């Protein structure tokens, strides 16, 4: 590898890392702002215009609070927990393609931390490790509620990883590659996977919510039952790391949803934009500008999904634990296996939109069943 390429790559990685942190930081602000707006309030608006410096104030507060370690806690594991959580969260954004490529003289450098041909498996591996942060922290606190939260987190993550993985298999079958860049490149223009895999998208989205421990699946930190869940005993920046890891995970999941199902940096009319820009501004500048437009489009999609995460959080109440497990094991796993089978048939007989068949059948079944249901005759409540 040449030196210039290395330098550009290094700058790129630093920038992507910084952007990840910045977005996670401002997600905390956006979360409170969105919550406020949905509840007919303004949200934080004191620190700077529109409360824009709120994350800095929060970080300052977090750093200066007392860093407390319970006397009976396992000290090293107690410290290891939040470190693991934030480490695994930060690792996963390395393989996401944030744009096409940067052209420097004759070099073409992809806008991506690192391109490996098993990108999606890497993300899976890192996500499945994320649960150790919660488990180790929850156990080391030496607190029953923390332990219960940790155990909930572990069983929930394991359960939803299966649905998560199976829902992607359909996409992998259609693409024939495990590399996220290859998957994104195949959705060139407007051929987004969403239109081929509606069911897979819904399953993936829901499982992403569960993997991030976001409402309606935030049982590991369920206040009403478990005080604070796995981070009951945490304070100061250790707690900050746990919360921060959640927001980084949210950003990464949004980026992956956007890449896998919403075409990543692809948008309709991208070829026209590229040709016009390279035609009018020269090969290198035009190419880089077109890449920048694609990256901005991708970030637009990511921000929409981050907003969606928050929107859902302030809309839906929490699931009960048995409902959560039933949904994961008895609904999503069979549905995603069905989706894989139907997609396989579609590939075999060259029917591109085969997966819609399941959706249509489900809609028809729902309509028939609500038509056949007895009219809402009011029954007195049984005790």
């Amino acid at each position, binding site marked *: 590898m040449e030196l210039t390429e290395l330098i550009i790559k290094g700058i790129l990685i630093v920038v992507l890392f910084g952007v990840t942190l910045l977005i996670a930081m401002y997600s905390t602000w956006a979360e409170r702002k*969105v919550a406020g*707006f*949905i*509840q*007919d*309030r*303004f949200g934080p*608006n004191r620190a700077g215009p529109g409360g824009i410096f709120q994350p800095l104030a929060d970080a300052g507060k977090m750093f200066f609070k007392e860093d407390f370690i319970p006397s009976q806690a396992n000290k090293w594991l107690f410290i290891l927990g939040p470190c693991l959580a934030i480490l695994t969260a930060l690792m996963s954004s390395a393989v996401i393609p944030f744009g096409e490529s940067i052209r420097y003289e004759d070099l073409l450098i992809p806008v991506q931390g690192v391109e490996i041909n098993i990108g999606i498996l890497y993300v899976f591996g890192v996500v499945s490790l994320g649960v150790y942060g919660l488990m180790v922290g929850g156990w080391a606190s030496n607190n029953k509620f923390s332990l219960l939260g940790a155990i909930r987190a572990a069983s929930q993550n394991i359960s939803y990883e299966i649905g998560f993985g199976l829902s992607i298999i359909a996409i992998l079958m259609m693409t024939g590659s495990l590399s996220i860049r290859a998957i994104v490149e195949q959705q060139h223009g407007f051929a987004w996977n969403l239109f081929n895999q509606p069911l897979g998208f*819904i399953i993936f989205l829901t499982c992403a919510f569960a993997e991030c421990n976001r409402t309606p699946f935030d049982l590991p930190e369920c206040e009403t039952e478990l005080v604070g869940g796995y981070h009951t005993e945490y304070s100061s920046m250790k707690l900050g790391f746990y919360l921060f890891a959640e927001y980084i995970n949210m950003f990464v999941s949004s980026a992956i949803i956007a890449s896998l199902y919403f075409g990543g940096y692809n948008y309709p009319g991208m070829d026209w934009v590229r040709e016009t820009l390279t035609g009018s501004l020269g090969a290198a500048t035009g190419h880089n500008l077109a890449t920048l437009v694609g990256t901005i489009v991708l970030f637009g999609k990511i921000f929409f999904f981050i907003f969606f995460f928050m*929107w*859902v959080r*302030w*809309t*839906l109440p929490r699931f009960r634990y048995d409902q959560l497990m039933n949904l994961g094991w008895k609904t999503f796993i069979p549905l995603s296996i069905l989706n894989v089978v139907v997609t396989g048939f579609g590939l075999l007989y060259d029917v591109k939109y085969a997966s819609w068949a399941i959706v249509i059948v*489900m809609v028809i*079944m*729902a*309509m*028939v*069943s*609500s038509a056949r*249901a*007895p009219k*809402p005759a*009011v*029954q007195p*409540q*049984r005790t």
Partner: protein
Amino acid sequence: MQLTNRSKEVSNKEMTMAEKMYLPAIVQGLAITIKHFFAKKVTIPYPEVKRYLGPVFRGHHILKRDEEGRERCTACGLCAVACPAEAISMVAAERKKGEENLYREEKYAAVYEINMLRCIFCGLCEEACPKQAVYLRHDKLVPIFTERDQVVYGKEELVEKMSDRYIRTNPDAQATPTEPSFSRSVS
């Protein structure tokens, strides 16, 4: 007994398939929240925007002077008796010769104190006063205090300044409307 038309009878009937799929209900809920997202906010960001207080608002107390600038209060103590929170205390004194331009009656309040931590702004002192000396201003709030020694307001703060006389703009004002108006006139 039916109180509103919006009450729903609870029933534990079997859910239909559409209800079991959750998704229609989730979409419905998301639609409701996004409607609120764009709705007008009811919060009034206080120090920058002040709420319209209305002509009968009961705010900062004031001890009135008459047209010639003499204090109206005669230290009869009826306000202190009427006060349900026992916030008012006073010390009476006799008017000396040569003080006729300061005090209207022969007896006056040498000390008149209102404890603003106790006061509940009910306006009963205003009702009780036979000399129309004490009023609760409709246009001014008691300012925020942070120290205990700022709590008790003496005559310094209470007696009306002749340069800045308080006139209740609408003495015939009707009672406060039940639904407070959110008009944001900066007072």
